[in-house]
């Protein structure tokens, strides 16, 4: 009984997901000389109708998580529980059918739309693949979808190059919506767009979420955008989630020094606040995911690092606060934002 209750609320449950890419040497005799540990043991769940924001720097593995969930990659280990089914173990026809419930929106609308297709056929393609309706109905629904995302249905026979970046991203959204998915993975959906257009697309995504009760995994490097759209936020560093919590709590009381540094690095469009702010400037760059540092993977850049951080990997565990998880030996000393 309890189980079904939990199951009805949680839409997707990712458990200890790992995605390692082999590095090979040699041309004929290929030997594996190491692994890029892009995603290295990540667990999270998302409730129906909610948005989980996934933030991190480039190379932290956030995009790989998104792509692994839709099974563009076959995960090295772990489970992707979608209802009672495990996407990680599926193959062939079973996987194809399961994918109907998950759709993806990509970062660059200049690359994700085939330039030789009209936007009508781009939006209709998923419906044809899954044969959801007759051709006439699909045509009608395509026109409707365009209207939903704020484009004129008359544009149905135009090609992607006739549209601006923001409009193209709307087309990508319409395509993702076309087969009524429950779960949408949005991989940096507004990063390629201009400021004034960005707000339009964000509002569109939020409106659609309310109308169709969609669940989002919103991948972004932009903490301001994520704060705006997400209910819960996971912060990634070198293939692991270092902190996950409720949105407001994460910003008000971060429990991981990386989150704190990340927050302080985001410029705020207000000169008065900017003058008063103390910035934590992290030294150096993200280490290579091939040679992950020992102990806590953040210790090479962490302003609080101690001996124990170099030796023992901190456990990702529940901390004080509402559903607040972090992986840090000294999380209680990560002070609140000044």
């Amino acid at each position: 009984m309890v189980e079904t209750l939990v199951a009805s609320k949680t839409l997707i449950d990712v458990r200890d997901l790992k995605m390692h890419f082999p590095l090979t040497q040699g041309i004929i005799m290929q030997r594996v000389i190491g692994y890029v540990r892009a995603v290295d043991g990540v667990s999270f769940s998302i409730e129906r109708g909610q948005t989980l924001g996934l933030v991190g720097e480039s190379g932290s593995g956030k995009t790989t998580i998104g792509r692994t969930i839709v099974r563009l990659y076959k995960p090295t280990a772990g489970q992707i529980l979608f209802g009672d089914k495990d996407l990680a173990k599926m193959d062939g026809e079973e996987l194809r059918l399961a994918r109907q419930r998950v759709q993806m929106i990509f970062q660059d609308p200049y690359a994700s739309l085939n330039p030789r297709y009209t936007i009508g056929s781009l939006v209709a393609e998923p419906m044809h693949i899954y044969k959801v309706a007759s051709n006439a109905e699909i045509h009608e629904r395509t026109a409707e979808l365009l209207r939903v995302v704020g484009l004129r249905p008359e544009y149905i026979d135009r090609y992607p190059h006739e549209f601006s970046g923001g409009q193209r991203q709307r087309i990508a959204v319409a395509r993702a919506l076309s087969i009524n998915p429950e779960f949408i993975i949005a991989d940096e959906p507004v990063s390629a767009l201009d400021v004034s257009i960005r707000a339009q697309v964000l509002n569109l995504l939020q409106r659609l979420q309310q109308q169709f009760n969609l669940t989002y995994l919103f991948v972004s490097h932009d903490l301001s955008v994520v704060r705006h759209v997400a209910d819960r936020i996971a912060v990634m560093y070198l293939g692991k989630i270092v902190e996950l919590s409720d949105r407001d709590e994460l910003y008000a009381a971060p429990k991981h020094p990386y989150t704190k540094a990340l927050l302080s690095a985001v410029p705020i469009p207000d000169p008065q606040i900017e003058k008063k702010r103390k910035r934590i400037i992290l030294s150096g760059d993200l280490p290579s995911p091939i040679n992950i540092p020992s102990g806590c993977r953040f210790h090479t850049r962490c302003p609080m690092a101690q001996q124990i951080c170099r030796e023992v990997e901190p456990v990702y565990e529940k901390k004080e606060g509402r559903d607040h998880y972090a992986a840090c030996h000294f999380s209680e000393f990560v002070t609140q934002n000044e």
Partner: protein
Amino acid sequence: MGEYLLEIQDLKTYFKVRAGKVRAVDGVSFAIKPGEKLGVVGESGCGKSVTALSIMRLLPQPPGEIAGGSVLFEGQDLLDLPESAMRKIRGGKIGMIFQDPMTCLNPTMTVGNQIGEALRIHLKLSKNEAQKRAISLLEQVGIPAASERINSYPHQFSGGMRQRVVIAIALACNPKLLIADEPTTALDVTVQAQILDLINGVCSEFGTAVILITHDLGVVAGMTDRIVVMYAGKVVETATTDELFVNPRHPYTLGLLSSVPRVDEVRHSQLRTIEGAPPDLTNPPPGCPFMPRCAFARAICRTMPPLEVLPGQADHLKACWVDVTDPKEQAYAEKRRQTRIEKMLAATNGHAASSQAVAEEK
């Protein structure tokens, strides 16, 4: 005269294309004092980068063409200088940082030689002296083990490190002015903070004036003294940084400020947006370029408003007929915005209802 280091007056840069002329920069004027930090903000295609390239005379001509105006640097019009004199200015008196550190370094030269090149050409240093100075420059921009890294090639550096090298090159000859065109757009936030901190520190130390070109309002808020807001090839508003954020007077600036989500703010239900998209700059219609997207727009906006000083505020200029602080105007704009939103919602609600009907039928 004399007060300004660089004074741009009525600069016009056009591009010839088959369909006509793209007016990328259309009558831009602004000035910068020695040591001042000026931000130029706008969306892509508003002409901010073309302005920078016009100052440096780095535009490919044709198709580009500087159709008018002047760029006075220390009293001298850069647009009239012969190419040989211009070469001395570029990299010598004016340094430039470009957006993408991956493409603006030469992959076949060591970074030491690339920094040294500027020093040997402009300051006529010997190879040895140039090498020594290059090492100290690399140290200044925070590259560890500079004396070893000097012989590395660009691909051996990360993005942030490469941008540091680019900054070292730009500052090698102690320029009076540094033009930074989106210096941190290609970088991660934590690295962005490092680089902005560096530019700020080094330029304050040497008294270098900075023109910081960016689309990110957060970046200019912390970095600059004064801001120029550009839209569709024109300057629409300019004010001191403190003034602009508190008291924006152009509807575009207003819209821009309210459409950005902020990391220090709890969300409102929806972001305010600027509807529509920037205009096509090939043969644009006369009048205010922002009119089609502006909630405050009215008949008079079909004539282009001049960039004028606000009464009583010598430092604040705007190009708009409407007083956006007037409650009557605000009410008018709010009403127009509401009707627009309602129209949009009506369209989509219709869809939601019909798709539900389809689901029930099944």
